Each structure stands twice: as C-alpha cells, then as structure tokens.
C-alpha cells in the first residue's frame, strides 16, 4: 500500500467509532470504483474481441453463427484484388496525410513561438476550430470549395482550362487540416514543457541556431513528432466522412468499402477485412509506443500513449 503515508494523519486524528464508520463506507466505495473500472475496460474491449474472434468463423452464412475455426476469410482478403486496392488507397492517403501534417504542423509549432501576439491569438482560434468542428462540416465545406474551384463540371479553374478534379490530392488536402492542428498541438505541448537549459548551454558554447536545433531541440521534440505522425496516419487511414465527400473515381479507401459492405448486409468476409484494419491501426500504435518509450528520468511520460492522454485530444 503505497498510500499508507497519506492515510496516516486520518487514522491519527479520527476517533475510534468515526474511523470504523468511514472505513466501512470506504470499503464499499473502493470496491465500487474497482468494479466500475473493470466493467468500463470490458466495455471498451468487447467490440474489438468480438470482431477478431468472428473473423475466424468458418461459416458461409450468418456472421454470428459459429461453425468452427477457419482462416478462409483471411484467404479471401489476401486474394481479393478489390480489397487490396482499397487497402492500398488507404495506406497512400494515410502516409501522405501523415507526412504533410507532421512536417507542416511541426514547423508551425516552432514558428509560432516567434510570432507576435496579435498573430498568435487568431491563429490559435483557427487551430482549435479545425480540431473541434464536427468532421461533417469540414467535409461538406471542402466539397463545396473543391467543386467550385477545381470541380470537373463547373469549377472556376476547370473552366479556365486547368483540369484537376477530385482524387488523392483532395482527400489528403482535406484530411491534413485536422491533422496539421493535431501535430501542432502535440509538438507545442512538448515544446512548452521542454528544458531550456540545454539550448542556452549550446548557445553559450557558440553553437549555431541550426546545430542547436538539430542536436538539442529536435531530439527532445521527437516523441511528440512521432506521435503526431502515427496519429495522423491512423486517423486518415481510418477516415470515413471526409473521404466520402471529397474522393475521386478510383481513390475510395478501405473504410468506404467496409461501410458499403455493412449497409448491404454483413458477411463473414467483412469481419476479416475489419480485423485486418484493426491489426494495421494497432500495429501502428505498438510501433509508436516502442519507438517513444520513456527513456531517462525526466519524470514525464514521453510515450505516445502518455502524450495523447495528457493532450486530451
């Protein structure tokens, strides 16, 4: 019991009867807190377990009719050219959005420190709006924007002879808005908690700003940058709403395929595709966690998970 030291004064000051009463009600509260926590974790993991288990179901008919262990739906995923095309599109969109958002978001976090107050306040407002606005608003607004500028039918630029249309670029551009802000917030949080003594020491030793940045600042920011990249990859890989609104022909991603399958009626194959999606998103998290696991005795949780929890976004 590591809380022993903290409960000591309570035991010392309270009289015998009062103490007994507090303890009994206390035990109930503790038991309830424990039970509640356990139930919530079961609630959070039940769906993940169910999808994975039923993806091994050998049935040909109803998804939830268990007919023995089988890998045949994974064979289906491996052999299906259609599923692979959608998966590849998702990976392309995820990587492109991840790279763009990470670079631009990190640059903005570094640059913002140098900007005057009159600039920072409205810029921050835009950052927060882009994070918090419901996704469907971003989706429809960018659809309308792209349609009126580069849309194949009546876009202004199209009528001027510049045929761009919809495709990967519209998906990536629209998804990057949210993800740039996400990276910016993660990196900025890390930047503000950073120990500045090393930077000052580097300047005292005549280090150039360029070298100081790459040798001192950047390594300290790296966990946040990695977390930002992995999160924006996952969110774009998995995105449904924005991608539905601004995709072009042949650039549909795997969430769109799965959504269509679900609407048509769930098949056992859907579960295998779903399990593959779970696997991809999960392995991204595991890689991130391994890359950024706490090193040294800074006392702050520098792992991806710790940072997300602290950021709350």
């Amino acid at each position, binding site marked *: 019991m*590591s*809380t022993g030291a*903290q409960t000591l004064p309570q035991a010392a000051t*309270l009289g015998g009867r009062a103490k007994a009463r*507090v303890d009994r009600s206390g035990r109930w509260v503790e038991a*309830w*807190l*424990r039970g*509640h*926590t356990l139930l*919530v974790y079961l609630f*959070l993991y*039940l*769906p993940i377990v*169910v*999808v994975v288990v039923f993806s091994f179901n050998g049935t040909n008919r109803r998804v*939830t009719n268990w007919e023995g262990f089988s890998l045949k739906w994974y064979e289906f995923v491996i052999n299906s050219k259609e599923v692979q095309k959608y998966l590849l599109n998702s990976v392309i969109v995820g990587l492109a959005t991840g790279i763009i958002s990470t670079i631009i978001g990190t*640059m*903005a976090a570094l*640059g*913002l420190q*140098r900007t005057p107050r009159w600039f920072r306040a409205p810029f921050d407002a*835009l*950052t*927060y709006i*882009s*994070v918090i*606005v*419901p*996704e*469907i*608003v*971003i989706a*429809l*607004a*960018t*659809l*309308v924007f792209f*349609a*009126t500028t580069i849309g194949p039918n009546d876009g202004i630029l199209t009528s001027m002879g510049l045929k761009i249309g919809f495709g990967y670029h519209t998906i990536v551009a629209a998804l*990057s*808005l949210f993800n*740039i802000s996400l990276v*910016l917030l993660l990196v900025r949080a890390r930047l503000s908690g950073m120990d500045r003594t090393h930077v000052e020491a580097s300047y005292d030793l005549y280090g150039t*700003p360029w070298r100081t940045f790459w040798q001192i600042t950047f390594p300290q920011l790296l966990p946040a940058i990695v977390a930002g990249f992995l*999160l924006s990859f996952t969110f774009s890989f998995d995105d*449904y709403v924005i991608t539905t609104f601004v995709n072009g022909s042949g650039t549909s991603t795997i*969430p769109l395929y799965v959504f269509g399958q679900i609407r048509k009626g*769930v098949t056992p194959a*859907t579960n295998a595709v*779903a399990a593959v999606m779970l696997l991809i*998103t*999960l392995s991204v998290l595991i890689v991130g966690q391994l890359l950024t696991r706490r090193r040294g005795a800074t006392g702050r*949780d520098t792992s*991806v*998970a*710790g940072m997300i*929890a602290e950021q*709350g*976004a």
Partner: protein
Amino acid sequence: MTSPAPAQPRATHVNAPPGRGRARLLTSVLVGPALAWYVILLVAPIAIVVLFSFGNRGKTGGYVPAFTLDNYAGALQKPEPFLTSLQFSIIGTILCLLVGLPLAYFIATRATRRKALLIVLLVIPFWTSFLIRTYAWILILGPDGIVGFIQDLTGNHSFRILATTWGVQLGLVYGYLPLMVFPLYVTLERMDRTLVEASKDLGAGRLATFRQVTLPIALPGLITGSILVFIPMMGEYVIPQLLGYGQTFGIGNALYLRFLEARNWPSGSAMAVFLILIMLVVVTAYVWFTNRGRTVREVSVV
C-alpha cells in the same frame, strides 16, 4: 559618455546572428504553410458555405447565386434533426461523465503502479479503427448477440437495441468516452491529495469531500471533456447510420443527405451554418468560463 551610445545597437546586432529580416523570413516560412492551409481549406470553404446558404438550388443541384433567407426558414421549419442531435449530445455527454468520472478518478488516485498500463489500455481502443469498433456493436447487439439472449430470456421478441435511439446512444458513449476520460484524468492526477486529507481531517464525509473538494478541482477537466464529447456528437454521421439503421435522423444524416444525395447545397449550407453557430456558442461559453479562473487556464487542452 557619448561614445558608447552608438556602439550599443551594433553590439546587440552582433549578439543576435540572424538579422531582423532573416528572422522574419524564417518565421513566415515556418508558419506560412499551416496558415495557408487554414485560410484555403478552413476559412475559404466556410465562407463559401455561408455564401451558398443565401443562394438557390440549381435545376440539377448545386448552387445558383441569389439572396434569399428561404434556406434558413426551411431549416427552422424542420428542426427535428437538430433536436434529435441535441438530445443525443446532451444525454451522451451526461452518460460519458457518469461513466468517465469514476474511471478517471480511479486511474488518477487509486491505480498506483498500474497507472501507465491503464492509460495505454485506454488509448488503444481510441486508436484502433473507429469504424470497425462501431461496426462490432452490430454483431454484439444483433439477434445472435446480447439482444437475442434477452429476447429468449424475457420472451419479448420485439425487444431490440439496434435501429433505436438507445443503440445510437450506446455507440456514441462508446466512441467518445476516452475523450472525456483523458482531460478528467489530467486534472485529477494533478490534484493535491493533501486537500482531500485535510477535508477528512476536518470531519467532512466522503460525499461532502467529493462535492466540495474533488469536484471543483476536476471542473476544468470536466468542462473540457464535455466539450470534446458534445460537439463531435452533434455532427456525428457514422454511428447513427450504422447503429440506428438510418431510423434516427440527426444533423449529420440530414447534411449527408442534402450534400451527397439530394444535392441541395443551399439548404444544406444553411443547416451547416446553424451547426457552426451552435458550436461557436458552446466554445465561446467555454473560453469565457475558463478565463474566469486562473488555475483553469493551464488545463484547457482544447
């Protein structure tokens, strides 16, 4: 006494190697791309939506320039999607709080060595495919799942959760719960535990201590969490569509219909403007509230 004066500006100039011009250039290069993204893909699109909301629908859909308030009048005459979404968001936020607060409290104050593990376990579902986790509830709540079991148990075969508001409500709480727990955890984790001990020493009961000490301390996290949960729930499309079977019709569904199926952009734009206004009211209230206290500021993660 007069000679050092002109030397001073030169000295500072030497101490700051990049000249003012170069420093400015670097700042704009760093911030420029993000600013361009915000202006081109956030400000301009929303401006166009506002413009379209005053326009007319073309014969084949799309937009014809006009100045009319008909789209707003139409949206006000049919407030059902707004009321549906509002109901989902309010109940959903309250449920997230009821489920999330004890959980965050437990992780922050009771889980000693397993704290890091419990946080990772909370991040994992949040990180894995949102669409697939929502889809899984179709299997769980289907006739072969929990609902079938309850039907057999009670003999009431009309009982179901999918395609009802409860199915959607459950999906919303499930999907957004971590966003409520993270900020709550952060505030409770930073809480000075001696305050609780002091309250108990002074004879306050558990409930009084919770109400008068813990809750006020957790308030900023509680408000941040509520905003993070409330606003996305308002515009949610995927969960009502999958778990409500399209039987429940919120703003998200109405917007999807107007933009991608009916192609009535002006009418959809007016609805979107209303949604943006609701969001701005909520966020403004939040900013106003967090600026009232000083301790509140540091935990405002949105």
